[in-house]
């Protein structure tokens, strides 16, 4: 590069951009070996992975440490996965990576996280950490299916579940706002109690039997026009991915948009955020910090419970003890990784949902050939959460006063 060209080159080819290119190359290294491209030779993934690592090294040396290292790591992961994919049979790959099914399945697993992370955002933006999302989801799951069973209607079922979660949210709000209790311990208590309450009520109300079959389920929204979109492959893909989704999934998307609007475009959202950033200043201008925090935390219980109710009423039409299986915490990770913004956490909810969907598909495809892989694959969403929480944490900026009880003066 000549001295003359350098200023121009420096403006376009920044280390960060090179790193991002490497990041994409690393992902492609794996992707090219999958349907529909099906690279059967290891050469293509090797070239792409080498490109990713080289770009990563360049970015690191140029100062974009985080992007660079991500590209390097992704290059190696992409190479490993690409190698595995070229060694697998095409039949198995087709089972795992039927993209339309995978996306539909991703959305199913992402929706509970979507609702719960919206709840987490409202709570944390108001200044209260909500570790109890998990327990609130569990309450929604049990009381949702109970309501659907007793009233015979999924809508009232989900509403009952949301009310139960809201009550638990109210309890958390009372302890963390009025009693100024430690919010992490309070949230843990909420989780323990939710397991106890739902387990107790389950045994008390249903005895040794499970929820009876034929409970009113959340219906699917049939979008058959998608199938007719030309060309056929696109139409089939769109219909397979989005044509038969549960109504709750679309409601979830709607809620993300509404939450973003409320949070950033309305006076209510401004007040809520101000109590999380600087409660004293908010108090000074006449905003009731306590009322805002009660609102945020209770709403977070309602939303998290909606996510839990989707799991029971919408997905499995039944209830198991502790069936939320850590999803509340994954949702919390999505809140943090998504920088306390609805669309950001939607992205990470989808990412975690994708990893869960992938885990199930992998298990289906390789159950017979690799013993125990279906069990081992279940780790995937948790490992991914761990990596993402570790990777993004320095970059995300929590509300300044989150976790700090406020004392009125």
């Amino acid at each position, binding site marked *: 590069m000549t001295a003359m060209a350098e200023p121009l080159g420096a403006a376009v080819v920044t280390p960060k951009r090179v790193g991002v290119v490497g990041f994409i190359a690393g992902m492609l290294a794996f992707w090219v070996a999958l349907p529909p491209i099906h690279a059967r030779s290891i050469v293509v993934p090797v070239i792409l992975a080498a490109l990713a690592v080289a770009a990563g090294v360049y970015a690191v040396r140029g100062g974009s440490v985080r992007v660079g290292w991500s590209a390097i790591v992704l290059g190696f992961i992409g190479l490993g996965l690409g190698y595995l994919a070229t060694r697998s049979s095409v039949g198995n790959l087709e089972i795992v990576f039927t993209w339309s099914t995978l996306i539909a399945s991703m959305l199913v697993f992402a929706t509970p996280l979507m609702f719960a992370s919206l709840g987490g955002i409202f709570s944390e933006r108001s200044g209260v950490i909500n570790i109890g999302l998990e327990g609130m989801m569990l309450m929604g799951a049990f009381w949702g299916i109970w309501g659907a069973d007793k009233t015979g209607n999924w809508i009232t079922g989900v509403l009952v579940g949301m009310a139960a979660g809201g009550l638990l949210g109210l309890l958390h709000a009372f302890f963390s706002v009025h009693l100024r209790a430690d919010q992490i311990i309070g949230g843990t*208590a909420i989780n323990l*109690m939710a397991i106890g309450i739902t*387990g107790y009520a389950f045994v008390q109300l249903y005895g040794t039997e499970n929820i009876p079959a034929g409970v009113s389920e959340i219906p699917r929204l049939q979008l058959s026009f998608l199938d007719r979109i030309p060309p056929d492959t696109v139409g089939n893909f769109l219909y397979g991915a989005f044509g038969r989704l549960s109504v709750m999934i679309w409601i979830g998307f709607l809620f993300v948009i509404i939450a973003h609007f409320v949070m950033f475009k309305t006076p209510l959202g401004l007040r809520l955020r101000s109590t999380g950033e600087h409660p004293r200043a908010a108090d000074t201008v006449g905003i009731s910090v306590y009322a805002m925090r009660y609102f945020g935390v209770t709403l977070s219980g309602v939303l998290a419970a909606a996510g839990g109710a989707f799991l029971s009423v919408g997905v499995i039409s039944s209830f198991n003890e502790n069936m939320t299986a850590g999803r509340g915490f994954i949702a919390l990770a999505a809140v943090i990784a998504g920088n306390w913004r609805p669309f950001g956490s939607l992205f990470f909810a989808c990412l975690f949902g994708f990893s869960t969907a992938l885990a199930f598909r992998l298990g289906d495809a390789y159950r017979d050939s690799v013993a125990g892989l279906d069990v081992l694959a279940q780790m995937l969403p948790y490992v991914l959460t761990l990596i993402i929480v570790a990777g993004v944490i320095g970059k995300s900026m929590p509300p*300044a006063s989150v976790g700090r009880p406020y004392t009125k003066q």
Partner: protein
Amino acid sequence: MTDAPTDRPPPERGEPTTTAGKLRLKQKAGGIIPPILTAIFAFFIGGLVILASGANPFDAYAGILEGAGINWFWDHFGNTDVLDLSTFNLTQTLLRTTTFALTGLAVAFAFRCGLFNIGGQGQYTMGVVVGVWVGAYWSDALPAGIHVVVGIVLAGLAGALWAGIAGILKATVGAHEVITTIMLNWIAFWFASYCFGQGGPLQNTRAGSESVPISDSVYDNGVFIPILWGDEGLQALHYGIFLAVAALIAFYLVINRTTLGYEVRAVGFNPEAAAYGGISVKKNFFLAMAISGLFAGLAAAVDIFGWKYTAGTLDVQASAVGFVGIAVALLGRSTAIGVGLAAFIFGALDYGTTRGLDPEVFDPTLAGNLSLMIQGLVVLFVGADLLILYLWSLRRKRFASPRMSGKGA
């Protein structure tokens, strides 16, 4: 939720900034009273729940006490030769006390450093996997006594390693230990399910049980802790209880009498102040987590080598001893004596509400969930010391005496 440097206002001088620091302060103000009131409150609300489900709370609690073998103390106190039901029940309670004391210490030690280790469950699970692997799958070339010691040590280290991951993530990138330890719990859960499950590396090798997802027995390999009290064929109490006692004493000595303990407490009280005083906050975060994990791993070791001898996927998936540890540590105020006493209370509650309970008196499946609820309530009220102290100070005002009124709560 992150601990990355933010633009938070600096803490006022001398004011504790962490959960543990604040609790220490409140504890000094309230002394022994809050934990006792906490327990009474939790059991009182538990009694209301029993009443609501149509049973007599006094009968139910009496049944739970009897199921825990507490009647041994007035029936045959001091006589260890009678082997009747109350003796058996008491030994079962003590078996659980041993485990809970260790998992309680796992939470308590991290707590003293201002960290909330809710990953005791995962650390325990990893200890179980390693303990079973060493005890049942290593050849019996080692002398049995040494083999047991090696097994206990390696199980403890497995727990330490697992918690150490969360410690490193906390120290280096500031990932909140609550999220990382919960994720590690689920990873351990699936890892152990894989190990002991169908076709897994630690599934049993006995002919005819190929489809049973349970490991081989360490007992059959001749590697176990000898019996202290009870009938050897019937899950008797083993010498491992002395390991728990030794751990409690070691905890007291390390925390109160060593440089490490001083540094851990200093970081727990106020990390900024500790760092200013020349203490490495990162090193202590890592060490506190690793030592916590060590206790949880030892809990697994005494369970495997003391009385369970095998582990299966169902055992792993149903186990909640790590979560009981949270309630034990909080009720015991993270002190050695407190943890020991709380472990006995929860040990009695655990056995007395499940297998020890006479089904005629109260349904054990209900009671098992009741004990979860009581744990949750204990944690909730401990988190809300303010409520307890407030109620206590009301009482003080009513019966105000000149001697007591000087002390502020």
